[in-house]
């Protein structure tokens, strides 16, 4: 079963990418994000991270944001889940 964070991250990605609800259901931990989806430019990623902060009530430091974090759905999800535990 998917965690709440997982569902929320899929929802935010749907909003950012303009997908219908459900279309991000087939994203796996290996699905590539930044650098793989052409519409996901730096401004869109910045919006995504800010939305993530608001909805999960977390703070993401600038130095935590690097290529690895945004590489795949799995890496972003792992980061978001770890942030919430703290």
């Amino acid at each position, binding site marked *: 079963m998917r965690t709440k964070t997982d569902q929320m991250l899929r929802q935010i990605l749907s909003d950012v990418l*303009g997908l219908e609800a459900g279309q991000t259901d087939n994203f796996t931990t290996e699905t590539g994000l930044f650098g793989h989806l052409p519409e996901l430019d730096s401004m869109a990623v910045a919006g995504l991270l800010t939305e993530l902060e608001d909805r999960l009530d977390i703070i993401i430091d600038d130095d935590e*944001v690097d290529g690895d974090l945004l590489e795949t759905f799995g890496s972003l999800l792992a980061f978001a889940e770890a942030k919430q535990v703290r």
Partner: protein
Amino acid sequence: MKTLGYACPLPSGGTARELALGFDQGRAKRVMIIPALLDEANRMRRFTVEVMRRLDIAGIDCFLPDLPGCNESLQDLAETTSVDWSDAMQAAAAQFGASHLLAIRGGGLVRPNGYPGWHYAPVKGASILRQMLRARLISSREAGREENQEQLLEVGLEAGLELGGYQLSSGMLRDLQSLVPAISTSFMIIDQEMIGGGPLWLRAEPGEDRAQADALAAVVAIGMNA
């Protein structure tokens, strides 16, 4: 829909002609829309115009003025502050004889006082700034340049800063740091839950959503008939 103009006051005195889109049939109900700011303006523009089409059909005149330094404006954004934006909106509202205002997102940060209306999806200036700074840091990092937010802001507050292709003045950066939506009983907040669907300002590519445009226009039209 017509292309209109309004006389926008210049900081140095005098006026410049700025563009506005409008549905004007001389009707009593007249809504002026204050657009979303900077990068969000592009993503929200089509949606905003879709809302205007619906207001027109509902018997409401509506206007969408350009902010100085943005869209078709010939003024230099690098010389513009948020005070110039609010002065411009004040002048436009007076010229179009607005009975109400509808502010979209950051547009609510520069709305003139004295008009009733609605603020759709309010946002703080600091949040807009933070997101634009973050976008710059991400693209710099991609390009192999190391920058940090504090240094960028420090330089920007002295000399201005380019963020997301917008050359922002030091005054504008300072304004964005501190501007928060004004709370007023005559100005109703419309949040995204009332409208439904995914927030269009998050979209990587500008999009539209008929149901959302219907919903926002309905809130305004019903509010004006009440």
